[in-house]
């Protein structure tokens, strides 16, 4: 089920209000049932995977805790990780590997056509972090199966993050309070996320589709396309994270933040501290540091970086362009540390951003390519080797048409609007205005967002495919 769907907003959520009237001891059960139903709507068959994953990690973690410090715990941890990675590998990477083998050896092994279960990359990473934390002694094994299953299946972050670790919500899974503040901040966050998704991300997606459809492309349009896609994926994913965090707050949870205005970064390494923060944190804590992190020789550090960024790329999708996307960032990060990091430090903030933004736009052109041919075609178009004119009539039309939205998206991707509003709201006049303005803003986001959904516009969630 999509957050930005009529069935979620005006059927699922109103029915879920029952959560607030049942006794507190029933709330996890209500959440669990609601979450399974939420997943069942999108994946009627694969919901069994979710149940299996909950059961597997529940029993594995109990066993690990019972035998902590022994070889048995290590074997159980290995078993748990193997099951999770096995599920992920089987459903996500089988056909990719078959394709790679066929391409490499010239064989004709038929593809399986296995469909990717929605959100499998997210929930397998969440459950792996849980068993690893139990193994490390950082978390206690959950003894209540319903509570454990509620953690695994929790619908707000189930299918597209943020990647919530058990430690993030351990206390709230057992005892949480819902206050006026949490309801208020959750409602605002949810409405902002809906607006980001429906008003900006979907429109940027339409602009990207227009780029693919035009007959008279241009070098300028290739860059506009890369910028539009970067903004689409940011507002799509950050919008979803906002909605998830907002829903979490309304339900009494505090999920970790996932984005911190990544496009204002002045280095690539800073970008990755601001973009998909929960995934970056996961790879840091469960892969990079166990590999030795940066407290190793230069050669080993480059190897560690290569492993982490190849994994980051492939986590996003089982295709070569995602692998190259990860490698691209790995190379940039190594270069920032070993080659031009010193030079960057001498530049002021403006020039550092002039350095970062084109590199990011190129990265998103790689990310969104449907195949290697499209990838090379898009990159050639961007650097003027695609045989296109610098400008075309259609480029002008689409730029004019999307000018307001592009401007709103660019400004909205910086902290400026939030800072201005907070500064104004802190004044006496601002306090008075916000009493009316904030409820009206919520209403406007809900109603305008609904209007876009009712009119049946373009509405995919990009991160579902990961």
């Amino acid at each position, binding site marked *: *089920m999509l957050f930005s*769907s*009529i*069935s979620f*907003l*005006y*059927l699922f*959520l*109103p*029915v879920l*209000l029952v959560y607030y009237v049942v006794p507190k001891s029933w709330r996890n059960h209500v959440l669990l049932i609601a979450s399974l139903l939420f997943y069942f*709507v*999108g*994946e*009627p*068959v694969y919901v069994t995977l979710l149940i299996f994953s909950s059961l597997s990690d529940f029993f594995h973690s109990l066993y690990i805790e019972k035998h902590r410090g022994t070889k048995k715990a290590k074997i159980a941890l290995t078993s748990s990780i193997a099951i999770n990675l096995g599920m992920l590998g089987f459903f996500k990477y089988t056909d990719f590997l078959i394709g790679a083998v066929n391409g490499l050896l010239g064989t004709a092994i038929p593809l399986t056509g296995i469909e990717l279960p929605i959100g499998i990359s997210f929930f397998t990473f969440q459950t792996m972090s849980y068993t690893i934390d139990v193994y490390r002694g950082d978390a206690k094994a959950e003894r209540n199966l319903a509570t454990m299953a509620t953690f695994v299946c929790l619908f707000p972050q189930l299918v597209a993050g943020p990647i919530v670790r058990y430690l993030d919500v351990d206390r709230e899974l057992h005892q949480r309070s819902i206050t*006026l*503040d949490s*309801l*208020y901040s959750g*409602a*605002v966050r*949810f*409405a902002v996320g809906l607006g980001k998704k429906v*008003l900006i991300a979907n*429109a940027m997606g339409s602009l990207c589709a227009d780029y693919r459809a035009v*007959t*008279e492309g241009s070098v300028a349009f290739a860059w506009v396309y890369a910028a539009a896609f970067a903004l689409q994926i940011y507002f799509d994913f950050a919008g979803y994270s906002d909605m998830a965090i907002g829903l979490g707050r309304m339900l009494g949870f505090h999920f970790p933040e996932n984005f911190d205005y990544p496009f204002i970064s002045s280095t690539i390494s800073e970008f990755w501290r601001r973009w998909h923060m929960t995934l970056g944190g996961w790879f840091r804590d469960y892969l990079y540091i166990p590999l030795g992190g940066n407290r190793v020789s230069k050669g080993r550090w480059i190897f560690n970086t290569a492993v982490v960024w190849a994994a980051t790329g492939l986590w996003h999708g089982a295709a070569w362009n995602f692998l190259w996307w990860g490698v691209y960032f790995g190379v940039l990060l190594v270069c920032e540390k070993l080659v031009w990091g010193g030079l960057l430090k001498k530049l002021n903030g403006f020039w550092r951003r002039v350095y970062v933004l084109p590199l990011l736009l190129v990265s998103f052109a790689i990310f969104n390519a449907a195949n290697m041919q499209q990838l090379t075609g898009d990159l050639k178009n961007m650097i003027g080797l695609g045989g296109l004119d610098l400008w075309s*009539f*259609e480029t*002008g*039309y689409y730029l*004019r*048409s*999307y*000018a*307001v*939205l592009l401007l*709103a998206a660019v400004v909205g991707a910086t902290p400026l609007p939030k800072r201005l509003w907070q500064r104004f709201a802190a004044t006496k006049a601002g*306090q*008075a205005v*916000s*009493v009316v303005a*904030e*409820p*009206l803003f*919520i*209403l406007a986001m*809900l*109603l*305008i967002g*609904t*209007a*876009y*959904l*009712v*009119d*049946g*516009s373009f509405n995919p969630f990009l991160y579902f495919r990961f």
Partner: protein
Amino acid sequence: MEKLKKYLVVAAMALTLVGIFAAHILLPDGEFSSAERRKLAQLPELTMEDVFSGDYFDDLEEYLLDQFPLRDGFRRLKANFQYKVLGLQDNNDLYYADGHLSKLDYPLKPTQAQLAIDKFNAIIAGHPQMNKAYYSLIPDKNYFLAEANGYPAMDYAALLQQAEGIHAEYIDIFPCLTIDDYYATDSHWRQEKIGKVAQKLAHAMTGIIDDVSDYTAESRDGFRGVYHGQSALSLPGETMTILRSDVTDAAKVFSVEQNKEIGVYNWDDFNNLDPYDVYLSGAEALLTIENPLQSNGRHLILFRDSFGSSITPLLMEYYSRITVVDIRYMASSLLDEYVDFTDADVLFLYCTSMFNAGATLK
């Protein structure tokens, strides 16, 4: 004050979600949308097969969307927000310029146009017994509106050049038309404005230049064209006019598809999903029209799209017989069973949009 704001925010969200949920349950479901000219989805039947295939939930979402309370109002809100707040130039490819709604139709698709050309040429080559073949293209509204208002448009010059591949004489009606000859909320031309087009076509085919009937105009208000509902904008209704004469009153129109006689004009069809059906009952695969007031024995076979419905009555006076063929609804391989080409003038009259979608011709 801070607490009041928080209460208001939470209440705004809760009341919106619950209010619309309640309205969805309480309001009766509609059968069809007159604005969008289509049937609305109904509550899907719950079966295990559909539930486990996921089809049920897709159908349920479609049902909830179609039966959404104040659906047309929400569509209007989106359209206005799109145009007036976000400044987007089009909404679902529809744009509003110079008082007209139009739909972006570009680029020129040479392969599609070639399909149309090949189809026409095959018909011409297959019927050498005809008198002479002609073709004419009707400019769609984008010809007048698009480039002039900064919208992308198909390359009309290239289209006309490609159309020279039709083995027939071209009758150029582009100079006879302006944007004012079209409905503001529809793609079609207005019958009362195309007398000069009919004269030009008739003159080219028959040589007659001055034998024009007197017409009596008959009008109805409240015409809302196909773009009106699609755009969801609040635009005023228009006046639809039909032109009557002794010829149109006396003509006998026979629908082969319906196997019965129909009227040249049918005001009853004004309330159809497409009010343009008033002219010759709209989409008809094959019509034969006898004009008892014309004894010259001439026969016109008109291959046409929907634009042909309104101009045919204006061509009647020049011919004793007109056969109106729509090969979007009738395979051209069946022509010999139903149409006698002997000594007939043959006219291929199509809008440029239709020509640019040649695959729809059978």
